[in-house]
């Protein structure tokens, strides 16, 4: 259903009530189901989004890099405000959550085409181009490095790979992993994964060998491999670069997974923001089919059948959560499922499914080639191998770093040119914000875990402003299923604002912390269970910032403004507002 709605959206610029009725009838589902899907995702809209729809990234790093000025420029040039379309229906301006371009912000997506490193000048040109009716693709003047230049991508996105390691960015010979795996038994593949001790790279760090073992042992005639390329955690963009430069390795890794668990179908769930890579990836798949690296009897091995389909997302961070991703891939609202049962038992289409991150599959391909022991020789006690980090924010060299697990934050900061960093956000908003005293700590599951997002904050960045941005992100991205997350994140954000406005007291700070505990412990999925982290970890590590804002010696301060509160109703009723206690 997602594909149908996506087509309607891009053909007609909206999914109108009428279209909803038609889709429901054609697909034999209720209108409410269709409407539920349309209203769930960022890139679907019931009202027209314009012939050109501009989605400007409003993530924290985008603001560090001047998003506010860019937004103003768009509004001035286009002649309409954000959230609106121009009167002639030509241009629509919208904000969207992190689009995976944090190393080249401010960035925006216009009709699936990515525009990076925006300046006021560039905005002027782009808007002029749109007014002149040029296609978004034609507005791209310069292409990025590597495969971004290839005929099927032609994007201005840059890879920004600053450090290559032995696992992800070492040379990879096409076909080698499937060839190797064909000589092994599925048992041996799982065993090799266990020996390597590789843990999931998507954030949660679950041991991949164990996950594959569970999935393989789940009863059923059919199983699935799903690759999580939703990459929605603000500040992560490493999967983007893998998809651009190492798709062959990724797809072979998926085939390895399929071979190990006994699945003949794989799904790449690609976030809508990476639509610009779709044709390119389809082409890689097609080539692999021709070369007997996908399809039937892969690498000449009888019965080694595996093929991969690409399923596009439609803009929703929570769809990165594996059960929500499965719901979304099945064409529904991307709301997490109750667990258990886990996807390994009941997953895509109700069948046992292993959902793994892009980077995890690449590791799997490498492990098959080099052996589990080789892999396990790198890293720390509980974190083996290397990790791709997406570094952005206040540093000289934002981009991709493949580091060995156990590298200290300090070393990383030296490498990326951020010696004046005051704070570092490890693992994106849902991770931890640390200060200088913790820069000696190591990046690994045993210490500072991360799915790859590293956001550096320098002395000029207002940390509380960043925290606020992260909280707004969670408010926006909560799927709304459970109250503690849906309402709780709003409450947290408002209480934070009260403190930021200088209207907070010590009570507000204590209550803020207890609300954090409620949201964390009462939410159903990982989103709500981690969403208070920006507040909690900054209260822990930067308490002085909060202390400086609250009114000392008072146990209660109200932000209520009587005159402002009655102003509008009095104007409507055409009466003179009376002062309080008249």
């Amino acid at each position, binding site marked *: 259903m997602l594909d149908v709605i996506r087509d309607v959206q891009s053909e007609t610029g909206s999914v109108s009530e009428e279209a909803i009725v038609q889709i429901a009838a054609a697909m034999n589902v209720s209108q409410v189901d269709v409407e539920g899907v349309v209203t769930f995702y960022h890139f679907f809209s019931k009202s027209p989004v314009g012939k050109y729809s501009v989605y400007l990234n409003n993530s924290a790093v985008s603001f560090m890099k001047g998003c506010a000025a860019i937004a103003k420029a768009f509004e001035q040039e286009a002649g309409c405000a954000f959230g609106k379309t121009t009167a002639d229906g030509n241009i629509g301006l919208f904000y969207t959550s992190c689009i995976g371009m944090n190393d080249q912000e401010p960035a925006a997506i216009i009709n699936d085409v990515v525009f990076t490193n925006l300046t006021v000048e560039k905005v002027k040109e782009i808007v002029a181009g749109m007014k002149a009716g040029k296609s978004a693709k034609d507005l791209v003047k310069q292409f990025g490095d590597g495969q971004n230049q290839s005929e099927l991508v032609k994007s201005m996105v840059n890879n920004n790979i600053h450090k290559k390691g032995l696992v992800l960015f070492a040379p990879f010979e096409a076909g080698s992993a499937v060839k190797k795996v064909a000589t092994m038994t599925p048992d041996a593949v799982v065993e090799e994964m266990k020996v390597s001790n590789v843990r999931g790279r998507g954030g949660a760090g679950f041991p991949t060998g164990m996950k594959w073992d569970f999935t393989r042992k789940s009863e059923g005639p059919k199983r699935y491999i799903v690759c999580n390329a939703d990459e929605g955690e603000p500040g992560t963009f490493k999967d983007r670069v893998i998809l651009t430069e190492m798709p062959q390795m990724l797809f072979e890794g998926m085939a390895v997974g399929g071979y190990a668990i006994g699945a003949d179908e794989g799904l790449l769930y690609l976030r809508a923001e990476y639509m610009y890579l779709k044709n390119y990836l389809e082409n890689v798949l097609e080539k692999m089919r021709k070369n007997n690296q996908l399809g039937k009897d892969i690498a000449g091995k009888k019965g080694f059948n595996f093929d991969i389909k690409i399923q596009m997302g439609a803009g929703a961070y929570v769809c990165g959560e594996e059960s929500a991703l499965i719901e979304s891939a099945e064409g529904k609202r991307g709301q997490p499922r109750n667990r258990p049962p886990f996807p390994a038992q009941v997953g895509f289409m109700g069948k046992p499914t292993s959902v793994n991150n892009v980077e995890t599959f690449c590791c799997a391909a490498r492990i098959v080639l080099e052996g589990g022991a080789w892999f396990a020789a790198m890293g720390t006690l509980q974190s083996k191998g290397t990790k791709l980090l997406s570094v952005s924010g206040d540093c000289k060299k934002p981009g991709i770093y493949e580091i060995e697990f156990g590298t200290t934050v300090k070393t990383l900061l030296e490498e990326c040119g951020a010696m004046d960093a005051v704070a570092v956000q490890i693992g994106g908003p849902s991770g931890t914000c640390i200060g200088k005293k913790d820069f000696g700590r190591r990046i690994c599951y045993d210490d500072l875990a991360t799915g790859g997002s590293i956001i550096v904050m320098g002395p000029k960045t207002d940390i509380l402003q960043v925290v606020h941005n992260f909280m707004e992100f969670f408010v926006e991205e909560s799927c709304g299923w*459970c109250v503690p997350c849906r309402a709780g994140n709003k409450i947290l954000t408002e209480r934070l604002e009260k403190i930021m406005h200088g209207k907070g007291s010590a009570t507000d700070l204590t209550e803020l912390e207890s609300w954090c505990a409620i949201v964390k412990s009462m939410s159903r999925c990982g989103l709500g269970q981690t969403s208070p982290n920006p507040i909690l970890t900054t209260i822990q590590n930067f308490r002085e910032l909060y202390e400086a804002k609250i009114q000392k010696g008072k146990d209660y301060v109200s*932000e209520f403004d009587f005159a402002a*509160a*009655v102003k509008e*109703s009095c104007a*409507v*009723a055409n009466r003179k*507002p009376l002062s309080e*206690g008249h």
Partner: protein
Amino acid sequence: MSKPVVATASLAGCFGCHMSVLDIDDRILQLIDLVEFNKSPVDDIKTFTKTCDIGIIEGGCCNSENVENLKEFRKHCKILISLGECAIMGGLPAMRNGIPVKECMEEAYYNCPTIDKNDPKIMPNDDELPMILDRVYPLHEIVKIDYYLPGCPPRADLIWEALVALITGKELSLPYEVLKFD
């Protein structure tokens, strides 16, 4: 020792929370033994006649009168309790938050189904009427609140136990069923 003095009020609420107070059944007789009521719909005393120990408020603030009432309670009560969802979060009345005040008022006075289309459109604006606030506020955003009793309405037992706990100084047990969200 003299009996603790209790005052209660319903602001932007439905009186359901007060009904729940009455729902403590025959314990109401014990309650009368335990406490003295001052300003409250229970005994129909309209104005404070003395400082109270405990103020219990149902409903949030939707207009200027609510605000004044609430501040009056804060002034006269040593302990203030938010009783029920409306007082704690705004509750049902807060469903209008997010809809512009103008739209709400026009819906109520111009366009609602009980208004005859031929009638002149009148927006009440007498100075005696309370002024509508831009949104419905939970109590704790306007004055300091000491305790919150959740529920819509909070169960009679909870209200009873909370009062007894406050008066006797015993700890109140709040089991999971009382706090769970769905």
